[in-house]
């Protein structure tokens, strides 16, 4: 393979946005039949670099060579003609069309279009690599994993032999990830070249042949995966040595803080989302919520936060003196007025927790704008808080007057978490707090959770990475289909057991 001309060569690629340099002088090669992992922290320019190859952006400087020939890629169509296809993090599919219609959409074919022939070709691709989709199924009927499959087939249908996948596993369950990796290996065996962007080190080590590391838009180094380990990769990515262990201090004097009894919730379409949920969250303890995405995690947190209409059941807040306050039927403002400081880091950061078009200071104001004198908001304190959060959590931002939507995902999350813990809460609810975050940022967040726990806060942590849940949480509540599948001791449980409980109530084999 060494003597062969690389299928894709990048030479001194530089991409700027205004004054911001996203990629600077990046050079790298991709060989035929290899899986290359592109690893870097949030905002290190991985996606931008790949977009330049896929024809979304045009780099200011540098050359791209495909199979040894210099090319100019001005549009995704140019990229396709060169056999380059990218599967983006946010799918670009039309919901009301079928899988097959989406796959052929936008193809330029002089002859009369033949959907049957297309279907046959799709089926052939599926069989070859082991995909499992029905070409006639509508996109809106599909799960996230199926949609991703359609995106991959779409790219293959167009004859791509260089595939770029941008964080493909971020939205998948562990089982789905295994399936995807199996397919990627099939494609590699078929001679395709694959570039995969991911944050998850275990996946990099599992699937890739080579790893290229970017930091702050620059090429840092590369490893042959067989010779690398998690510690080496992390150190190279972050630029300094990082410890990869999550602390789990023993809870100190845990007392009941939130008692949920018989909670039942329906969504706006009348579909049952939570059924008879009962549990207790205690002070000085992290209660993990495990479950396949969409099994009631969102509704559970929003119920406690006062954002969800509740059919039946009770959510009691237990005061220091043991008396209870009922939270059902109260909105967030009334909960605050009761003297309960409840912080909530929702899943949809820019859709719910923050306002994308407002700057950092104005976003800090969301929680405190009522504190000002009379008619006016207090503007000074929020900006000071923003400065403080930027400093303490190492938020990468030009200033506190930058619109939050211009920050990268990890920095957005730091702003949100920073604001939520600044109010010295007694209960902290977090949903997928580290989703899309790189290792370094994730560890900052875990550390913050532990600090809150040590302060005596009742932390509820909804997570998707089982390894992290098992390392971080004191107890783990497993949700399955809107019901409590079980509550386990985080120190005395194995991953397999949790995985079983996520897919079957109680985790038993015969529970179908």
């Amino acid at each position: 393979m060494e003597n062969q001309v690389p299928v894709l060569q990048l030479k001194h690629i530089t991409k700027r946005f205004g004054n911001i340099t996203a990629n600077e002088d990046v050079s790298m090669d991709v060989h035929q039949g290899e899986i290359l992992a592109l690893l870097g922290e949030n905002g290190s320019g991985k996606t931008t670099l790949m977009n330049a190859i896929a024809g979304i952006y045009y780099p200011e400087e540098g050359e791209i060579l495909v199979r040894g020939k210099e090319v100019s890629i001005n549009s995704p169509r140019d990229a396709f003609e060169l056999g380059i296809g990218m599967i983006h993090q946010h799918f670009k599919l039309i919901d009301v069309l079928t899988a097959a219609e989406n796959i052929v959409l936008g193809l330029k074919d002089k002859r009369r279009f033949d959907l049957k022939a297309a279907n046959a070709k799709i089926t052939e691709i599926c069989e070859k690599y082991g995909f499992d989709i029905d070409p006639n199924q509508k996109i809106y009927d599909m799960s996230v994993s199926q949609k991703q499959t359609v995106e991959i087939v779409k790219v293959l249908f167009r004859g791509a032999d260089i595939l770029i996948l941008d964080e493909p596993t971020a939205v998948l369950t562990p089982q789905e990830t295994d399936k995807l990796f199996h397919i990627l290996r099939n494609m590699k065996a078929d001679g395709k070249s694959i570039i995969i962007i991911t944050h998850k080190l275990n996946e990099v080590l599992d699937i890739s042949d080579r790893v290229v590391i970017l930091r702050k838009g620059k090429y840092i180094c590369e490893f042959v995966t067989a010779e690398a380990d998690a510690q080496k990769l992390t150190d190279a990515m972050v630029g300094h040595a990082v410890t990869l262990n999550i602390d789990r201090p023993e809870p100190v004097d845990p007392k009941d803080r939130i008692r949920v009894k018989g909670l039942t919730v329906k969504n706006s379409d009348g579909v049952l989302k939570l059924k008879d949920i009962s549990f207790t969250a205690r002070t000085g303890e992290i209660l993990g919520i495990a479950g396949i995405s969409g099994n009631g995690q969102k509704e559970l947190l929003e119920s406690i936060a006062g954002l969800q209409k509740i059919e039946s059941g009770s959510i009691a807040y237990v005061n220091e003196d043991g008396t209870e306050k009922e939270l059902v039927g109260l909105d967030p403002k009334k909960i605050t007025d009761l003297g309960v400081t409840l912080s909530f880091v929702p899943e949809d950061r820019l859709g719910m927790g923050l306002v994308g078009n407002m700057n950092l200071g104005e976003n800090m104001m969301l929680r405190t704008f009522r504190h000002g004198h009379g008619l006016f908001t207090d503007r000074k304190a929020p900006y000071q808080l923003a400065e403080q959060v930027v400093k303490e959590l190492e938020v990468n931002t030009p200033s506190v007057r930058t619109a939050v939507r211009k920050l990268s995902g990890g920095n957005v999350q730091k702003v949100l978490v920073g604001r939520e813990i600044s109010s010295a809460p007694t209960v902290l609810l977090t949903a997928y707090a580290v989703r899309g975050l790189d290792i370094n940022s994730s560890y900052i967040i875990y550390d913050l959770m532990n600090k809150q726990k040590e302060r005596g806060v009742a932390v509820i942590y909804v997570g998707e990475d089982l390894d992290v849940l098992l390392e971080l949480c004191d107890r783990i509540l497993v949700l399955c289909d809107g019901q409590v599948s079980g509550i386990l001791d985080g120190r005395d449980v194995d991953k397999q057991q949790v995985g079983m409980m996520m897919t079957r109530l109680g985790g038993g084999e015969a529970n179908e």
Partner: protein
Amino acid sequence: MNKVPLIHISRRKDIVWYRAWLVRIIAVVLALVVCGLITMVMTGLDPIKVYAAMIDGTFGTARRVWMLLQNIAILLCISIALAPAFRMRFWNLGGDGQALMGALGAAAVMILLGDKIPNWLLILVMVVVSIAAGAFWAVIPAFFKARWNTNETLFTLMMNYVAIQLVAFFVIVWEVPKGAGKIGIINQNSNAGWFPQIGGSKYLLNVIIVAILTIVMFIYMKYSKHGYELSVVGESEPTARYVGIKVRKVIIRTMVLSGALCGVAGLLLVGGTDHTLTTTLVGGRGFTGVMVAWLAKFNPVFMVITSFLIVFLQRGATEITTTFGLNQSYGDIITGIILFFIIGCEFFLNYRINFRKSHKEVA
């Protein structure tokens, strides 16, 4: 395939303020040049003379300056009324109807109570009634939006026509003399309900009131709790609920404010300057105000500039059509071209155009 594109467009992350203004000034200059060329080609007139006539038509005499100020005041009043609604992403296209209802309220009080109660009380009642009428007209679509999520764009638009019909009806009820089909000047002899003149001009009071309202609105939107709440609701309703802002309440409250200020515009027209009521009294300012507000990005202080620009263009266009005996549409063409350039330059503020570097040889 093997070539760099001649131009490619990329998004700007930021632009320094003086560059932004430079782009805008270039846009205006270019617009004037293009208008001049078109004027020469189509009419054979000297464009410099045309522009001179436009400026003369707006600033030529003291009366013209007062008319300019009065027109800016009313347009600005409606524009700042629309600003909070638009900031909340509530597309209030009913400014015309809300102002007309305010005018109807003021006229009704003048006609029905004129000379029956002391003048100061009469004016006070006029203020209350016209504000209430404007607010009422705005709160109906707001209520439906808040309660059933109806489309506010269509609803507010349709309310304009209802308002026009209502005014048409009352014009007939109160017509003077009978059969004239119009009201004429209300309380011409007693001047009851006419706003006091200050500085010898009937326009100055309106200008002062609107100037104060503009500053108050700027502070309201930028620094008040209400202003913050309505911005959050506009950006994201889930976020508003997340921090316990009552979305329905904010929608209704903001529209009461928006309608009330439109009502004030109607009041100023009836009580301050025109002293009559017609269906065309507001003259489409509810829609022109939309343009003013958008151009100024909903900032009340910038609206002073944009409303001046719009009024200047309108008045200048009217002037040149009469001075040079041109078709009425000619003024609209000029206005259209200038607005095209001003709105079009926003593209260059958000995007950068990169040209191919000619020195680079492709190997």
